[in-house]
């Protein structure tokens, strides 16, 4: 079984600043994938970034990067140079390589202020 915990229900950041969203997970799997998804009011889940657990190098996608600490089972998302369009719900998710269903945290609502 897997559990994903996002301990910050809401976060706020000023435009152009940097914010970090926290995520911890628990899994008995030796190989798995970790994801951050963004959900704007349109409801569609948009993939922000993906990390394979066997890779030590932290994934980066433009202004988005992760801090993956495998031993601590931590997977935080850093958003640099925040933009108004980054405002959304952000969900952390874990998928076992032996399985197929994404397990999601409860999400963090990110507010970006001008």
């Amino acid at each position, binding site marked *: 079984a897997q559990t*994903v915990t996002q301990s910050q229900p809401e976060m706020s950041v000023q435009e152009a600043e940097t914010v970090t969203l926290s995520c911890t997970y628990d899994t008995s799997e030796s190989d798995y994938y970790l*994801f951050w*998804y963004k959900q704007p009011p*349109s*409801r*569609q*889940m*948009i*993939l922000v970034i*993906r990390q394979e657990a066997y890779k030590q190098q932290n994934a980066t996608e433009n202004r988005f990067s992760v801090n993956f600490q495998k031993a601590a089972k931590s997977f935080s998302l850093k958003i640099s140079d925040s933009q108004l369009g980054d405002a959304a719900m952000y*969900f952390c*998710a874990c998928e076992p390589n032996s399985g*197929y*269903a*994404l*397990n*999601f*945290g*409860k*999400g963090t609502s990110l507010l970006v202020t001008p």
Partner: protein
Amino acid sequence: GAGVSQSPSNKVTEKGKDVELRCDPISGHTALYWYRQSLGQGLEFLIYFQGNSAPDKSGLPSDRFSAERTGGSVSTLTIQRTQQEDSAVYLCASSLAEDGYTFGSGTRLTVV
């Protein structure tokens, strides 16, 4: 199509009625998933289809919920005798191997 399409976008139904929610996955995607998102919650896995294999129904919350996928493409999620606790957003996703999931915009179901 270019993305995962779900219909209807919104559905209001009376308690006790049956509803059908439709998902058109991306053409060629062999895997299809249904998730439920209740207010203020994360996504809860419901059911998974992979090619012609028997679906994994382990996430369905009760026997009032069922789903089918015809011809390896379109899927329908059916909820019988709807209850107020069924009110949620129902999201569909499709994927092809390691390419990751593509989600639709969901159906918001309201049971009154």
